[in-house]
């Protein structure tokens, strides 16, 4: 019993230090992206812009006709998608013959506080997709968006439907009015005075606030349970290394640009405008009925960050004639890093894309 207590205490103290270091990184300007751990796959940076570096991962073997653009979220660093061999979405897709491009968002500095959806979608993502079509010599791309990246992908596809051959969304929040996540309610009820204070003081939404928000979704797990799980599974092959990398990612929060943070609170959480095609971007609005390409909407059924009900409406809001919801029994992160997801889910995603490749 005493060795167990000693081991748990040590793990908990290590976790506290990781959180502390993560907080310091989140406060740094610029954010030290060079401190990210190396992923499972080699890449080249083929395009650099104000807020993004676009990574290129070559396909293994003969490449498919249409490359995949992985649109990652604006929250935390993207190495979760290439965590380690056997638990890498990038590796899975390149093994299945897809050229993969990954949006490595550059964390915003205070001077970037004005940037909103218009800038991220109509400038950064636009230029990135343009670079992909030029680099790959194609006219269309497959877009695969994860979480907030799914939201960006959906908006981009609705604005530029002819450039997207197939759209895959994973754990993508569309309906922010769904029950099942009280923290969505908290974001919706955030008073203007508090919102203005945050942005006035910090410019952007601080990384520590985002980390606190995510931690609050499962506080007992983050404070205690995961260390018990580590103790129980420490003899499993690769578990300890996976745990360490995963924890590193959990503490890789970055600031969220002030403009997009305000728009998320006002347009998504308060007014739920994507559901009513009233989401404003730049001088126009986003009409999800403009999405006509094949759509695979992957929903993690144990997701406590994006509840099932938040993702399900997407299919019906589009005009896709070849769409389906794929319910997968995993959590928000498990769907990208669990061994079972890489045995079942990602081969299925690759097969779905391959069927629609020509």
């Amino acid at each position: 019993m005493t060795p167990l207590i000693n081991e748990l205490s040590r793990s908990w103290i290590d976790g506290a230090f990781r959180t502390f270091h993560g907080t310091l990184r989140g406060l740094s300007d610029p954010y030290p992206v060079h401190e990210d751990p190396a992923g499972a796959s080699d890449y080249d940076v083929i395009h650099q812009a104000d807020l993004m570096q676009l990574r290129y991962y070559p396909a293994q073997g003969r490449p498919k006709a249409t490359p995949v653009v992985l649109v990652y979220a604006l929250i935390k660093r993207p190495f979760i998608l290439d965590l380690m061999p056997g638990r890498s979405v990038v590796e899975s897709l390149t093994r299945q013959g897809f050229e993969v491009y990954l949006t490595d968002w550059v964390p915003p500095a205070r001077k970037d506080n004005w940037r909103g959806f218009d800038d991220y979608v109509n400038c950064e993502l636009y230029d990135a997709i343009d670079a992909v079509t030029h680099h790959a010599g194609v006219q269309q791309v497959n877009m695969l968006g994860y979480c907030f990246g799914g939201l960006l992908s959906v908006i981009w596809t609705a604005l530029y439907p002819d450039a997207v051959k197939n759209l895959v969304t994973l754990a993508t929040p569309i309906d922010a009015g769904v029950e099942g996540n009280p923290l969505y309610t908290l974001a919706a009820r955030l008073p203007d005075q508090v919102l203005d204070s945050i942005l006035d003081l910090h410019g952007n939404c601080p990384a520590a606030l985002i980390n606190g928000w995510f931690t609050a979704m499962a506080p007992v797990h983050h404070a205690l349970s995961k260390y018990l799980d580590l103790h129980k599974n420490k003899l499993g092959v690769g578990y300890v290394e996976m745990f360490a990398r995963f924890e590193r990612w959990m503490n890789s929060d970055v600031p969220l640009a002030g403009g997009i943070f305000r728009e998320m609170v006002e347009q998504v959480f308060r007014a739920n405008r994507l559901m009513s095609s009233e989401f404003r971007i730049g001088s126009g609005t986003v009409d999800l009925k403009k999405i006509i390409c094949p759509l695979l909407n992957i929903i993690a059924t144990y997701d406590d960050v994006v509840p099932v009900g938040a993702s399900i409406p997407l299919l019906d809001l589009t005009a896709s004639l070849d769409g389906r919801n794929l319910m997968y029994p995993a959590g928000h992160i498990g769907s990208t890093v669990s061994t079972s997801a890489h045995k079942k889910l990602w081969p299925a995603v690759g097969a779905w894309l391959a069927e629609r490749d020509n």
Partner: protein
Amino acid sequence: MEHTEKSWFALLEASTWEFPLAVQKWMLGGKGGNQEVEDAALKTFHAWVNIANASVDRFYQTKGFCELMTGSLSWLLQWQRLGRSIAGTMMPGANMDMQNGAKADEPAVYEIVQRLSREVRQLTARLNMQEGPNGFRIGRKLEGDNDSASR
């Protein structure tokens, strides 16, 4: 509710029966005593975790939760603002804002540059959205920046 009742039962069973029994066995030198104590402790803990998670979820659903969180956030921000004011007064030359990219000696020029940069980006976004009927420049030839979709 049924799930919570099961968790309470499991917690009571593990903490009042299984754990004390395992401890007694261990103290009397029984075979596998230490492992049994550990297993019973873990079972108690898991039952407690289930109850704690359910309690947290119920707390999040209460009316007061939002008020408490927004109030706490507001309070925290006020203290941060006060702290920065004090630090700024005591150390006028120091840059306390780790995310402030402004150069201290050229604030006006910096602001103008930032505003122009923002306007250029917004105009670029407008142009991108209005690029054509499909709104996207595709099929550029590799030799030149020809916008015709010729592939």
